[in-house]
């Protein structure tokens, strides 16, 4: 529904999505509030939840608030396909990460620190 007079949609829609975005954001925050992942020591569930909430929230912002849902496919594809190429970069970097890490540990003798120092909020 793209017309010459711009994007006109009922106000109620925006309020619904607005509320939904608050709920999704609260969901993301609760992941950290309940220390999901840190409590059991395996992070897979935490990462999965973070990604689910992230894509949900990003999707609603782009689709409804930025009106992409109602634009023609030519514009939608022009905007969504190029960032998809970034996934190649992400894939390559993830693929190489282990190798770089191992090189640092095995050949350069980097000390592996499993835990960061605990944070105390002291002003230096």
């Amino acid at each position, binding site marked *: 529904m*793209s*017309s*010459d*007079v*711009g*994007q*006109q949609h009922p106000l109620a829609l*925006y*309020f619904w*999505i*607005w509320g939904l975005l*608050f709920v999704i*954001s609260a969901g*993301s*925050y609760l*992941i*950290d*509030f309940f*220390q999901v992942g*840190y409590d059991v020591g395996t992070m897979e569930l*935490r*990462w999965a939840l*973070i*990604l689910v*909430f*992230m894509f949900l929230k*990003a999707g609603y*912002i*782009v689709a*409804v*608030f*930025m009106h992409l849902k109602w634009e*023609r*496919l*030519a*514009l939608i*594809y*022009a*905007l969504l396909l*190029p*960032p998809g190429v*970034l996934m190649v*970069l992400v894939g390559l*970097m*993830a693929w190489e*990460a282990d190798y770089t*890490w191992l090189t*640092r540990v095995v050949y350069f003798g*980097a*000390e*592996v620190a*499993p*835990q*960061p*120092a605990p*944070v105390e*909020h*002291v*002003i*230096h």
Partner: protein
Amino acid sequence: MAEAAAQSTGLASIAKDWSSDVTTFKGVPWGKAMMWIFLLSDTFIFGIFLTSYMTVRATTAEAWPNPSEVFSLTLFGTTVPLLLIAIMTFDLITSSGTMALAVNYGYRRDKKKAVIFMLATAFFGFVFVGMQAFEWYKLISEGVRPWGNPWGAAQFGSCFFMITGFHGLHVSAGVVYLSIISYRVWRGKYDDTNFEIVEITGLYWHFVDLVWVFIFAFFYLW
């Protein structure tokens, strides 16, 4: 010719729109198309920032400082993880909502409400930048530098300042942009248009919120 191309739908419409030798993006004012293309290029900048940060985090042998602890706030004797960042997130969501309303009122030719909601958006943006300044101040006081920090991998600081700094710059620019455009709308500069300028400004603002979604997920929560 142009009408014939505009009538087709589905996958065929992509080829027809691109090859129709007229305006490619039907029903999209040129300013809006240009804003989208600018935002696309900005997507790559932030995409590359976040990818570099993840690469650095995955390859360092040192432990990554725990963001949940680093960004916690102590209120009334209770330490709440990531509290300031959560407040910043809700503030930005609020501003996105007011921006969406401004766009809607703009297209309804309700100039007064459009201006009020644009200024409300700018206000929430300003509050966000204020909280970010506080966050930077707090971390710098605690000894976080681009070359080191008291808790773990040195790259934590450089990634933090680079990514949140660049995002904060976008928010600040957005506040200025919103202020200028709302003033011009108020003065009647766009009275003979459909007020698509409000939607164009809105696209930029929603993008700033969108980037924060990814920063929040990958930098603060991961």
